[in-house]
């Protein structure tokens, strides 16, 4: 296929497909580039001479020069935007690169930017005929259709009161529309989605949520699991729900998680051991 230089733009394609990464990061947003039409496979080219990858970047920093990367597909994640011929930073954080071509800025905040296929904890704020209005700590309220449940029909609409805590999945997320949620997975099964009864919910930052969901298991959860039995639901929007048989266990698990944000793996284990000693 001939590789043609377009009159106004640069022969480089910015891809808008969502992608899920093993650890932190959110799927991409679409980056409109109206001058690109050629369908080229990604050819690996040399990285820019000085690279800001794995360094702290600040809004305004330019991280990629598109003129130097001809005919490549680049995927942009959270915190980056396209500014004519360059990619610049919108949020402060650490710039990450997942080879060959996925860039994003890793940062931790108290609010959440909805992305498709994220699992979050939402609180019902209102019930409408067609949707539940659910608060997921995003810039706008999210809609949960009343039929988005396993075996959901007009006859068996669940009755959620205002204040109900739900574990849901984000289905649609655009910046200009309210996000849409669902209580079923892709195959149509309920699979743990739905109302979370009993237990205790607390709010943390999105960075801590990602750490709790990382694989291999987060050190604090592993250390707690060695001696206590509890169940936990972590939402990527910074909400965590803990349930155990006795209130003291719930309090201990919640405190351990809240204290573990800025600690390393070894420090987390030591902190959990100290808390366990106080319980005995």
């Amino acid at each position, binding site marked *: 296929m001939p590789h043609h230089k377009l009159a106004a733009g640069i022969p480089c394609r910015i891809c808008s497909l969502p992608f899920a990464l093993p650890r932190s990061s959110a799927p991409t947003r679409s980056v409109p580039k109206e001058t690109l039409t050629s369908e080229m496979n990604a050819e690996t080219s040399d990285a820019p001479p000085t690279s800001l990858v794995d360094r702290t970047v600040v*809004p305004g*920093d330019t*991280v990629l020069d598109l003129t130097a990367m001809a005919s490549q597909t680049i995927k942009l994640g959270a915190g980056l935007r396209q500014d004519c011929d360059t990619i610049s930073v*919108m949020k402060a954080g650490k710039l990450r690169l997942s080879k060959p071509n996925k860039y994003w800025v890793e940062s931790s905040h108290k609010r959440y930017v909805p992305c498709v296929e994220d699992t979050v904890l939402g609180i019902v704020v209102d019930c409408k005929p067609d949707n539940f209005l659910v608060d997921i700590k995003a*810039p706008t309220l999210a809609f949960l259709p009343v039929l988005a449940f396993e075996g959901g029909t007009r006859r068996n609409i669940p009755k959620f009161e205002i204040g109900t805590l739900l574990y849901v999945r984000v289905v649609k997320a655009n910046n200009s529309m309210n996000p849409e949620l669902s209580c079923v997975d892709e195959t149509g099964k309920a699979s743990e989605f739905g109302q979370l009864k009993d237990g205790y919910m607390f709010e943390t930052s999105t960075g801590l949520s990602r750490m709790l969901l*990382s694989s291999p298991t987060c050190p604090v959860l592993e250390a707690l699991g060695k001696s206590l039995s509890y169940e936990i639901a972590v939402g990527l929007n910074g909400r965590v729900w803990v349930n155990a048989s006795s209130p003291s266990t719930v309090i201990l698990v919640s405190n351990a998680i809240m204290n573990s*944000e*800025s600690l*390393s793996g070894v420090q987390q284990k030591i902190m959990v051991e100290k808390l366990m000693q106080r319980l005995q």
Partner: protein
Amino acid sequence: MGAMTVDRADGRSVNQLRPLACSRNILHRAHGSARWSQGDTIVLAAVYGPKAGTKKGENPEKASIEVIWKPKTGQIGKLEKEYEMILKRTLQSICLMTIHPNTTTSIIVQVFGDDGALLPCAINASCAALVDAGIPLKHLAVAICCGFTEGGSVILDPTKAEEQKIQAFAYLVFPNSPLSVLPSAPSAEVDGPIENGIITSVTHGVMPVVDYFNCLERGRAACAKISEFHRRSLESQVPGDLTKAT
């Protein structure tokens, strides 16, 4: 112009700034907060948002910003309203307003101490709080106060006593100096010190035009230092790499 050394009360040279301190994420309930101090001028800024809905007169196709200024003592008057308006316009030019349409971001500025250069301190604190809250920004805003004395020399970051004695002063806000992987533009020297542009300029008093441009030059150079301080304070707050690939 002859180099006139000005004796400043606290022993600083003409180009020396007061000690800067910045701490982030201090308020538990606010989505972003920062406390910025320059000497004895201390300002705390808190950011809430983005929240759904815009005010009546605002354009729903863009995000909107509202600023509330709380003075240390006394009732809210015209001066506070003026500060709110200047702060709102400055922050509107650095925020990306089209990312989250039909939302409102509220910034509340509380003055803890006022010892000169209050508005620049508030702008620096608000910008740090916006970064802490994760609001998408084009670049950072770095603010400084330049005073023009009767002797004809430009002093930076005057205290309140100095502000009352000098002939004129200007609050200047510049974009920060970014890191870039691009090769630096060859025309940087040709454009002079304002190659990256200026966001806001508020002047009080009377000064000649030539000296105003002199103030701009000095202010720009000092803002590079403040911008460097801002970047370092952000680096130290990034949490440990627990999510790094092992």
